């Protein structure tokens, strides 16, 4: 016979009510959430790097201010999510240590380099766009603090996507060289963006249980399809070609068919052999360690003030 606590938990989830921090929950549910939320938080924080790279080189004060605000938002997203992970008993500093030690992952998309300024626009359009597809259903995820964090995140993401698309529209109405720059960037980011939804359903080991627990609401392939369908008209309007000869409308399915994703590349990047994995983690480690004296000084100051009081 299963426990009264488990009954209660299952009833809460089945009724689409939210599980709150002090409720009893199965160990597996807690562990899955900590892993997923931490990975999500790490992605936001590491995700600041590829774009942060362009803040000082963005072509105008306006573009610099926009990019700075966007990157600052991503820091905020990371912090909302670390706060949600902490309500499950995780320790924030420990999560950072695990990231630096390579024991926790982040989205593989951020292991690709930002080679041109057009990448800033394409990241906003495609990478933030894919993130939005993933995140909107998470606003209804079964764990309350995670759902609430995602609502805040989603509100802010739409600015990210729109600034990216607007940047690209501006470049597309520029010179031939600028248009070529946008197309070249789309060619590099399209496939990695599709990989952001994770492995195909048949190989996604956690999906089934996560859907039962209503942590996840849609499978990886469903969300990927939704993203492709959304992106096609946006690409057309922009005047760029998505680099997939198999991309075609399928009237029977009511969806676009698209080509096979290079899963070998996906797993290679996930396992640490992407173009920038080592650089991203090293940068994070250095920032964390270089900031140690600030954290220590603030702590010492707070202690001194407390003693004086």
């Amino acid at each position, binding site marked *: 016979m299963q426990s009264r606590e488990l009954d*209660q938990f299952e009833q809460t989830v089945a009724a689409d009510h939210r599980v*709150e921090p*002090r*409720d*009893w929950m199965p160990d597996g549910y807690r562990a899955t959430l900590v892993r997923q939320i931490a990975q999500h938080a790490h992605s936001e924080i590491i995700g600041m790097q590829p774009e942060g790279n362009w803040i000082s080189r963005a072509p105008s004060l306006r573009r610099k201010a926009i990019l700075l*605000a966007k990157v*600052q*938002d991503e820091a*905020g997203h990371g*912090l*909302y999510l670390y*706060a*949600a992970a*902490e*309500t499950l008993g995780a*320790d*924030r*500093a*420990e999560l950072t*240590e695990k990231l630096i030690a390579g024991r926790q992952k982040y989205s593989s998309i951020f292991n690709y380099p930002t080679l041109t300024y057009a990448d800033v626009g394409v990241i906003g359009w495609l990478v933030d766009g894919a993130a939005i597809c993933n995140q909107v259903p998470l606003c209804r995820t079964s764990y309350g603090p995670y759902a*609430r*964090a995602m609502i*805040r995140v989603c509100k*802010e993401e739409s600015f990210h996507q729109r600034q990216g698309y607007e940047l690209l529209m501006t470049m597309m109405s520029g010179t031939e060289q600028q248009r070529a720059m946008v197309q070249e960037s789309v060619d590099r980011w399209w496939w990695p963006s599709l990989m952001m939804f994770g492995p195909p359903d048949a190989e996604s080991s956690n999906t089934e249980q996560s859907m039962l627990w209503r942590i996840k609401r849609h499978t990886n392939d469903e969300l990927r399809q939704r993203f492709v369908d959304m992106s096609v008209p946006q690409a057309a309007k922009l005047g760029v070609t998505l680099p997939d000869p198999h991309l075609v409308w399928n009237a029977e399915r009511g969806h676009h068919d698209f080509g096979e994703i290079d899963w070998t590349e996906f797993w290679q990047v996930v396992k640490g052999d992407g173009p920038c994995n080592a650089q991203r983690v090293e940068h994070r480690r250095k920032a964390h360690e270089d900031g*140690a004296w600030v*954290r*220590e000084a*603030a*702590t010492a*100051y*707070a202690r001194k*003030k*407390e003693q004086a009081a």
Partner: protein
Amino acid sequence: MTRSSWPLYEVFVRGKRGLNHVHVGSLHAPDDEMALRNARDLYTRRNEGVSIWVVKAESITASSPDEKDPFFAPSGDKVYRHPTFYAIPEDVPHL
């Protein structure tokens, strides 16, 4: 390395005049003043608030470890506390 030596604060924001402060999340800070500044940067980047409260999480006393606890049972069977409990003829004005 010192681990999480900064205390946890819960953050409450008043969205605009006339509304209650509402819990929006948490953060770590070395002291109350820094907690307020960090809360401003983290939770009100787009005019989400006109006033912020921060309180150390350890100072909060909560009702019970379970969100659906018998603690709230006493109010469950007192339907007479609600105005709809009382049948009043339709033609009585202003009631």
